[in-house]
């Protein structure tokens, strides 16, 4: 039955996917042409990649609403591969690069089968950011010259950037009419790209910005063609060159250089970028999916690999998952993989029906689209964002960026990894923490009270993140999960960012994901992704940056009208008089919530002395009662952990409450007073609520559940329980 209904939904959703695929193809067409041109490959190669990608990945892929095709990230890599492998002969270089693309496709398939498709998980987040920014700068540097009508600008990325002012002056002063008009169209196209999102007109927004550029430039050509007396001012060299017979002219890869170092390094770069770009896009698109499905990353990587192999053999570029086109797909209500398929079909139709029209598009117009994408990848806002996470992240980011621009992508990412590691070592002043523990399985997961509890030991950084990830991926996002870092000395930015992602995903799917155990840690900045180093015990941060847990506690404290002090130096005089603390020494109290004689707090205490000393942190609730209470402890029947403090006292049975007697273990010195104290109302309250461990002295009550820090949700429950209990006790 399930099957049939899915099929029905599929059929029912075909119209909306058809439409969505159409809109996406409107973007994919100019982008495909532009990306191919920017890569130094024939323009058709980008369209081939989009068509093959759309068909293959929609049939065998593992994601739902993603769109596949040629990607931004690969432009720089493929351009350099074509230049280096071609040795001056661009077309020959292109054929060699096709071979590299085919091999990288095979590598991707293998990675997919080895379940290592998510290469990005092995790299520090800031290094990846730096690398992407470098790619953006690379695209920008090259394309801004093309946009201004100059195809001849050559040199390294840095040289090209230096030439930019000169290029602008040349553009303004030029007497070459063809170049001037091409440049004019380029600048105008860029303006469309920049201001498109700001023009909130429904009809204008019907056609995506890149397509506006195509429509307008084709229209301009037609104007000159049909109405104007003067000829079209832009020279043929500055227009797109499509083969006259689209179907009969596929390029075939040349495997002649397969053993050479340059070839191998090109393969590695292409594979690396293809994997990282696809993974980032798949993850991002999953967050957009209306139906909240989880993509099968490795299956998708395999499909992308196969699509890349086929595309390479047909003379096309790499196939990757692309974020911009995928988000357009989601925005246009694309709901399953058929949208990707239809987008490919529309592209086939365009290229077969409108090849003549497409030849009228000036290169500068396409370059403008790429200048805009390049700028977005490397925008100053991104740099600001990285800096807000912490200055050390900026160092990693900039180092990766500069090295990538100056040398190559592989060196860039290597430098990024090394610098990240060195910074981690410096922050911790301890290299052995990493060396000794890197191979240890440091993650423990088990379920407890229907909750998933994950404890992480030693350190957690990009080096061993996959261990944590493989555990977390096994938790259904509709459940409740608690990740405890209190046994961790160090948690890095990449992990913090990923924890944040998990929180979002769980929230979206109705579950709950919470990180605990970082409240005692030190961080460099306010940002929730900032790395955290656990401080040595006993040192109390007087003020500091609140962790996410602390912020959430602060938030609920406002909701529940408690006053909150994260770094309180509060001393609860009564605490040591509780039986529980008879053998335990209170070290410090933090994260204190207070209201009407009630307080909830995290307490750090130690058991044993000298070498036997163990430090424990737990969340507790304390009530200062107005009336005198009999001393007692109340526990779940069968929990014997706490009983030793009252050894010698028997379970006190309350008459006429057999259920209570069966479920609870109540003990204390003066049985009579306790019996009198436990009124029917109080017993009913205990019976109908979660069972906590409760202790009473003459003037106060102490409530705790597990001997660990509570999650925010648990704090809420505890607060509610405590407040209700207080009400009942003060009443009777």
């Amino acid at each position: 039955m399930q099957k049939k209904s899915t099929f029905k939904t599929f059929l029912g959703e075909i119209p909306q996917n058809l439409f969505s695929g159409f809109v996406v193809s409107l973007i994919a067409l100019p982008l495909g042409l532009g990306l191919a041109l920017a890569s130094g490959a024939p323009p058709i190669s980008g369209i081939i990649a989009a068509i093959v990608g759309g068909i293959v990945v929609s049939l065998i892929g593992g994601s739902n609403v993603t769109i596949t095709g040629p990607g931004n990230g690969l432009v720089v890599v493929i351009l350099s591969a074509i230049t280096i492998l071609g040795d001056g002969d661009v077309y020959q270089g292109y054929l060699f690069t096709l071979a590299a693309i085919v091999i990288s496709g095979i590598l991707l398939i293998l990675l997919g089968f080895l379940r290592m498709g998510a290469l990005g998980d092995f790299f520090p987040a800031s290094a990846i950011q730096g690398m992407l920014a470098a790619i953006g700068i690379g695209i920008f540097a090259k394309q801004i010259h093309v946009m201004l009508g100059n195809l001849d600008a050559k040199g390294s990325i840095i040289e090209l950037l230096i030439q930019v002012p000169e290029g602008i002056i040349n553009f303004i002063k030029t007497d070459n009419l063809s170049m001037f008009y091409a440049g004019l169209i380029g600048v105008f196209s860029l303006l469309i790209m920049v201001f498109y999102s700001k023009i909130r007109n429904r009809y204008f927004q019907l056609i995506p910005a890149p397509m506006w550029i195509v429509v307008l430039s084709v229209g301009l050509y037609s104007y000159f063609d049909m109405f104007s007396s003067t000829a079209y001012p832009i020279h043929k060299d500055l227009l797109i060159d499509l083969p006259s017979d689209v179907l009969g002219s596929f390029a075939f890869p040349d495997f002649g250089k397969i053993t050479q170092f340059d070839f191998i390094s090109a393969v590695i770069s292409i594979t690396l970028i293809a994997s990282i770009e696809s993974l980032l896009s798949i993850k991002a698109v999953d967050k957009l999916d209306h139906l909240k499905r989880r993509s099968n990353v490795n299956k998708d990587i395999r499909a992308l690999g196969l699509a890349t192999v086929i595309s390479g053999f047909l003379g096309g570029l790499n196939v990757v998952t692309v974020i911009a086109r995928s988000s357009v797909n989601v925005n246009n209500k694309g709901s399953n993989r058929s949208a990707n398929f239809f987008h490919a079909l529309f592209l086939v139709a365009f290229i077969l029906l409108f090849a003549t029209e497409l030849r009228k598009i000036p290169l500068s117009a396409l370059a403008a689209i790429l200048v805009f994408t390049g700028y977005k990848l490397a925008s100053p806002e991104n740099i600001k964002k990285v800096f807000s996470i912490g200055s050390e992240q900026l160092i990693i980011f900039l180092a990766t960026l500069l090295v990538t621009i100056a040398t190559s992508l592989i060196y860039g990412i290597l430098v990024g990894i090394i610098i990240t590691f060195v910074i981690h070592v410096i922050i911790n002043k301890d290299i052995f923490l990493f060396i000794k523990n890197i191979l240890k399985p440091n993650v423990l997961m088990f379920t407890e009270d229907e909750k998933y509890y994950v404890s992480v030991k030693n350190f957690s950084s990009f080096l061993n993140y996959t261990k944590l990830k493989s555990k977390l991926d096994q938790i259904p996002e509709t459940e409740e999960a608690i990740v405890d870092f209190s046994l961790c000395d160090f948690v890095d930015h990449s992990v913090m960012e990923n924890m944040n992602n998990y929180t979002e995903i769980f929230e979206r799917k109705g579950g709950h994901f919470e990180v605990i155990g970082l409240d005692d840690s030190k961080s460099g900045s306010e940002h929730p992704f900032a790395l955290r180093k656990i401080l040595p015990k006993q040192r109390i941060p007087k003020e500091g940056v609140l962790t996410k847990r602390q912020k959430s506690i602060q938030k609920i404290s406002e909701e529940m009208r408690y006053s909150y002090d994260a770094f309180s130096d509060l001393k609860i005089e009564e605490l040591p008089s509780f039986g529980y603390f008879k053998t335990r020494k209170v070290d410090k109290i933090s994260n204190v919530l207070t209201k009407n004689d009630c307080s909830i707090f995290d307490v750090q205490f130690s058991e044993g002395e000298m070498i036997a000393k163990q430090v424990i942190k737990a969340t507790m609730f304390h009530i200062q009662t107005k009336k005198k209470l009999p001393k007692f402890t109340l526990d779940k029947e069968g929990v014997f952990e706490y009983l030793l403090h009252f050894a010698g006292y028997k379970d006190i049975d309350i008459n006429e409450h057999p259920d209570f007697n069966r479920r609870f273990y109540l003990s204390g010195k003066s049985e009579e007073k306790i019996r009198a104290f436990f009124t029917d109302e109080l017993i009913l309250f205990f019976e109908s609520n979660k069972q906590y461990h409760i202790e009473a002295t003459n003037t106060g009550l102490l409530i705790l559940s597990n001997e660990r820090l509570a999650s925010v949700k648990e704090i809420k429950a505890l607060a509610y329980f405590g407040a209700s209990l207080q009400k009942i006790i003060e009443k009777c």
Partner: protein
Amino acid sequence: MQKIHKILIGIAFSPNLEPNLFEAIRIANMFNAELIGVHVGKKNARKEESLAKILEQADALNTPLKTIWQEGEPVDVILKTTVDEHIDLLILGALKKEKLLKYYVGSIARKITRKATCSILLLIKPSIIRQFCKHIVVNGLKDDKTEETIKTSVLFAKHLLCKKMTIVEEISQSELQVKVNDDKSLRKSTILKERLKNREDQRVKNILKDISYDDISIKTQSIFGTRGYSIGHYAKVKRADLLVMNAPNKVGILDRIFPHDIEYILSELPTDVLIVK
């Protein structure tokens, strides 16, 4: 094991001797067993005197301490003594890393642990004053030795007056044949996990069926993780007072380079550890 008549403790004149000895005496008394101390080295008056001094302050032993003085290689001497004296339980003290709150087993103790033919109790927190044992964590691996180990744990729990015991079933990732890729495989794996958990619970229950454990509350807990390592992590998280493990089957040179099972525990003791032979 299941019977403890003779307990051996190594006597090295270190600052830890006093708590180690106090603890050993207490344990010996709880089991009503004979305590034997072995010192590897020469017998002299000074050593005898300091030993006597400690014994004076400790609880009185039910059966008097028998001290063996013998020179030689510590590992060999201790191993030989366990065999000669028909020792049931060997008590070793662990070392604590400077500054770090981590304990590990010294090289001598480690060698002994690997080769010994009797059960071994590794103490990380011997104490002069008695600390109550409140929670025992036992491995529930699918292994022939597990039944014996659980029986021994119950015996310990009874003698140490411990009321809470958790039997941990470590289920390795490879047993969970479904890899989580997407929603569908996640559902499958969640169901499979539940099934594995029930199967393991059932297995442990079958073992428990024949054991009388009176008022000790025994729970089972499945954890998914690397064998040997995760149980230590669990004991640490749950702050167990004693971790009971099966003895390793056979330890080759490769196992030391790529540590597993017990070797993990030895390199980072989460709590007191009892290895049952």
